[in-house]
C-alpha cells in the first residue's frame, strides 16, 4: 500500500521533515522511490517567487535539448541551484546525470502579458520539453512554475535523501508547503512521471489508492486540456479533474467531492441544491472515481486539502500545532514530526468531507 504525507507551515520547512514524516511509515510502503513538491519557497528561492523555476532531471543530451528549447522560446535564466549530490557505494538509487533547478525571466514578449497567457506559456513550454526528451528518455520535466520545485527519483527514499543531502536541515532550501510520497508506481510501468505528487499549473495531488474508473476518467480528460497527458498513473486523473473544475470551469473547491464521489441519488433528492448537484453529476459523470482513494492536494494559492473515496477505504490523519499542519497516511508520521501536538485534536477525515487548510493554517471541515 502507498503512504502519502504533506506539511503546511507558517514557517519555512526543510524537506528533511518530509523525509522523517515518510520514513516512519516505511513499513507501509515499499521504499521504491521518493518524490516531493515544494511550494511557497524560502531560502535561496525566496526572492524569485514571481519567476518560474524549472524542475528537470536529465542526461547531458537532455540538458542540451532543454536549453535549446528554452532559449528559442526566449526564457532568460536568472538563477540556478545545483544540488550537491553524494553518491556512495551500495546506494539504492537510479540517479540521473543532471538535476536542474533553474529560475527564469519570462520572454520579452510576455513580460506584460496577462497572467493566464503566461501560465499557458509555461505549461506549453514544459510539455514541449517533456515531449522532446521523451523520445530517448533523455530527461523528465516535472514542473515549470513560479515558486514550485519538484524532485522525483527511483530508489530507497533514505538513500535518495542522503544522495541529495536532504537529511540535514538548513535554511537555504525550504518551503511552507511540501507534499511527499515514497513509492514508485505499482499498477503500471515504473517511470519517473508516474510518481506522486503530480503537478499542473499550480495544482498538486498525491494519492494513496487505486482509481478503478481510470479508463473512463482518462478517455474523458484526454480531450479536455493539452496539459492532461501522460496518464502513467491512474492517480493523475485526480489532478486533472481538480484542475479542470477549479481552473477551467472556475468552480469552488467544495464541488470537487461532488464530482469525484457524488452523493447517492436518494440523498441528492433531499437537498436544496439538487438541481445543481444533478447537473454536475450528469455533465461530469466520466470524472467520477471509484475504488479506494485518499487524495491530498494543493491549489495555486497553496491552500491544502484532503478527500477520501465515498467508502473511506484508505486512511488519513490530520494533526496540527500552532504553526504547522501535517497530513499523513499513518498517525506515526505525525507523531514523528509533531510529537508535542495535542493528539486529541487530530482529525480523521470521513468519507463525505473535505478538510481544507488555508495559508493562515485555519483548518476547516466541509461536509459534502
Amino acid at each position, binding site marked *: *500500500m502507498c503512504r502519502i504525507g504533506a506539511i503546511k507551515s507558517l514557517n519555512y520547512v526543510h524537506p528533511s521533515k518530509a523525509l522523517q514524516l515518510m520514513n516512519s511509515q516505511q513499513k507501509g510502503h515499499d521504499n521504491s522511490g521518493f518524490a516531493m513538491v515544494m511550494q511557497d519557497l524560502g531560502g535561496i528561492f525566496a526572492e524569485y517567487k514571481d519567476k518560474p523555476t524549472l524542475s528537470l532531471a536529465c542526461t547531458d543530451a537532455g540538458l542540451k535539448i532543454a536549453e535549446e528549447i528554452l532559449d528559442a522560446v526566449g526564457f532568460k535564466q536568472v538563477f540556478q541551484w545545483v544540488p550537491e549530490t553524494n553518491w556512495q557505494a551500495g546506494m539504492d538509487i537510479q540517479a540521473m546525470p543532471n538535476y536542474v533547478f533553474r529560475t527564469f525571466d519570462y520572454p520579452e514578449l510576455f513580460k506584460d502579458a496577462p497572467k493566464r497567457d503566461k501560465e499557458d506559456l509555461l505549461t506549453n513550454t514544459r510539455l514541449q520539453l517533456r515531449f522532446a526528451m521523451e523520445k530517448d528518455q533523455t530527461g523528465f520535466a516535472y514542473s515549470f512554475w513560479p515558486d514550485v520545485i519538484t524532485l522525483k527519483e527511483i530508489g530507497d527514499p533514505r538513500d535518495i535523501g542522503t544522495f541529495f543531502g536532504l537529511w540535514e536541515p538548513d535554511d537555504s532550501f525550504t518551503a511552507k508547503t511540501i507534499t511527499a510520497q515514497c513509492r514508485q508506481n*505499482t499498477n503500471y510501468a515504473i517511470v519517473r512521471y508516474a510518481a506522486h505528487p503530480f503537478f499542473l499549473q499550480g495544482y498538486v495531488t498525491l494519492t494513496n489508492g*487505486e482509481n*478503478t*474508473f*481510470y*479508463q*473512463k476518467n482518462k*478517455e*474523458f480528460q*484526454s*480531450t*479536455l486540456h493539452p496539459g492532461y497527458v501522460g496518464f502513467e498513473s491512474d492517480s493523475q486523473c485526480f489532478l486533472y479533474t481538480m484542475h*479542470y473544475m477549479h481552473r*477551467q*470551469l*472556475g*468552480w*469552488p473547491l*467544495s*464541488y470537487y467531492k461532488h464530482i469525484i464521489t*457524488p452523493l*447517492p*441519488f436518494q440523498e441528492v433528492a433531499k437537498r436544496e*441544491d439538487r*438541481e*445543481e448537484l*444533478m*447537473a*454536475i453529476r*450528469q*455533465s*461530469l*459523470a*466520466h470524472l*467520477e472515481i*471509484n*475504488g*479506494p482513494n485518499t487524495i491530498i492536494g494543493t491549489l495555486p494559492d497553496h491552500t491544502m486539502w484532503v478527500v477520501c473515496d*465515498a*467508502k473511506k*477505504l484508505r486512511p488519513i490523519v490530520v494533526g496540527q500545532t500552532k504553526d504547522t499542519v501535517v497530513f499523513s497516511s499513518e498517525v506515526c508520521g505525525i507523531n514523528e514530526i509533531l510529537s508535542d501536538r495535542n493528539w486529541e485534536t487530530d482529525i480523521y477525515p470521513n468519507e463525505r468531507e473535505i478538510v481544507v487548510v488555508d495559508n493562515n493554517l485555519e483548518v476547516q471541515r466541509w461536509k459534502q
Partner: protein
Amino acid sequence: METVKINDLACNDLPWKVIYDSKRCTLCGSCIASCTFGAIKPKIERRRKSFSDTETPEPKITFSATPVITQVNILKHFCRGCGVCERVCPNNAIRSERNPDSRFNVVYQAATATGPKRGGRNNLEVKARTLDTLRVGRISQMTDPSLDAERHTFDCQAPLGRILPATQLPFTIGPDGTLAKSGHTPPVNWIYPIIIGDMSIGALSWRMWEAVSMAVAYLNEECGLPVRQCSGEGGMPVRLLKSKYLKYVILQIASGHFGWNRIIKAMPHMVEDPAGVLIKIGQGAKPGDGGLLMAAKVASHIQSIRGVPKTDLLSPPNHQGLYSIEESVQKMFLSFNAAFKFRVPVAIKVAASATSVSVFNNLVRDPYNIVGGFFLDGIDGGTGAAHDISLDHTGHPVVSKLRDCYLAAVAQGRQGQIPLWAAGGLGKTGNLAADAFKMFCLGANGVFTGKLILQLAGCLGNEHSRCNACNTGLCPAGITTQEPTLVRRLDPDRVAENIVNYFLAMDKELRKLMAPIGNSSLPVGRSDCLISTDKAIADRLQVQYVC
C-alpha cells in the same frame, strides 16, 4: 391404394409434426380445445385387424372405426410447435416435434404468392452470442478491495435526456461561494438502467399490458426501483394518460403516429409528465420496415385508442415528411420538446445498422441540445409481427455497434452527452443482469428489453422457431392476442409478480457484478473490466483478449 398427389400439402411439409399415441389417448378433447391454431382435429380412422382365435391359424379380419387426433394439413392451420397440447394432455399422448425436413418456406410461397410472416424473433442465426464470450475479468483484490454486494450501497441509475458539457452549464457563483443554476438545461430523468421496451397495447393483450403496468407501478412505489416502460406505438388508455402513473411511461411515436390524437387531447388533463418521449425511427428485428398490427388483433379497444377501423395497421417504413437528419432534429424533436414545454426528454430509437455511427454523430453534434437519448436496437430484438424475410435476413447485431457509437463519442470528448441505450436479444439466455452489465462496460448507459418480459409472462416461443405466432392474434399464452377466451388464460397478477420478482433478482445480480470490480456506481464505458476468450471479438470491441 391412393394415387400419390405430390403437389398436395402433406403434414411432413410443415415445420412441426404432431406425434400422437392413440393407445394412451383418452379422447378427452383437451388438446383440440386448447390448440389456438386449429392444427389438430379429431377424425375416425378405419382400422383393419387380422387375428386368429383357433389353435391352428385361421386368419380372420375385423374392421373398426377408431376415433383419433390428427394433424391438419392446411397451410393456414400449420402447427407452430407451441406445445400447449402436450401441456394439457393428461396422459402424455400428444406432442409436437420439429420437422427437420420441413418444406414450409417453399410450399407457403408457392401456395400464397406471399412470404410467411411471424411474430417473435430471429431464428436463423442461433449460435454462441458475442456477450457470452465476454467475462467480467478485472476482479478487485488486495489493494483495490471488492465491495460487499449485500452491505454496501450502490447507485444503479441511468440518465435519459440531453446532457450538457460542463462548460455549457448555466452556473453562476453566489456570494456564499455556491453554484446556482441560472438558466434552462435540457430535462434529464435518472431512471433504472433497464427499461421495459416498447410493446404496444395492440401487440399485447390488455391483460399483459395491465400486468406490465402493474409491475412497473409496484417496482416504483413499493420497491424503490425507478423502472420505466415504453408504451410502444399505438397510444395508451386515456384513463392512464390522465393518471399519476403516466410518469412511469415513456410515450412512443412511430411512423404511423397511432394513438397520438388521444395523447394530444389528453395533454391538458395530464397530472404528471411522461418519463420521456421516444421517437421510433427503426426497429432491430425488422429494420427498414414499419410497425405491423394484423387486423385479427385490432379489437374494439384498440380501434378506440388508435381511432382506426378493424383492418391491418401498417406503419410506413419511415416518418413521412422527414427527409434529412436535420429535419428529424428540428421538426420532430423540437415539436415534442415544445409539446411538453421542454420538461420531458425526447429520445430516438433506431435499428442498429452499418450507418449507426453517422446517425449518432449527427445527433450528438446538433447545436440545439434536444436529442435526449440514442436507443440502438439490434438484430436479435423481438417484434409483434414481421415478414420472415425481414426477421431472418436483415439487421445488424447491437454489441459492436453500441461500442462503435460509444467510441465515436469518446473520440469527440462527447461521451455521455446523448445517453446510449441498447437492446436486441439481451437477456436471451435468461440472465439480463449479465448482458446489461457487459453492455454498460462497453459504453451503454442503459438497456431495454421486451422479449424477456414476455418470457416472464409465460411465452412459449423460442429462438428455435417454436410458436412465434404473435402476429396471428392466436397466442396460446394469452400474451399477444386480443381474443377474449385466450386473454383469459393469462393471470395478470401472476405475470406482474413474475416481472417484479425478476427485477428484484436482477437488481441483486447487478450488485453481484459491481461488487467484485469494486464499483458502487454503474461502470459505463469501463471496458477495462471485460475480457474475451475470442480474439476477433476482443479486437473488435477493444477489450483484453485472454486464453
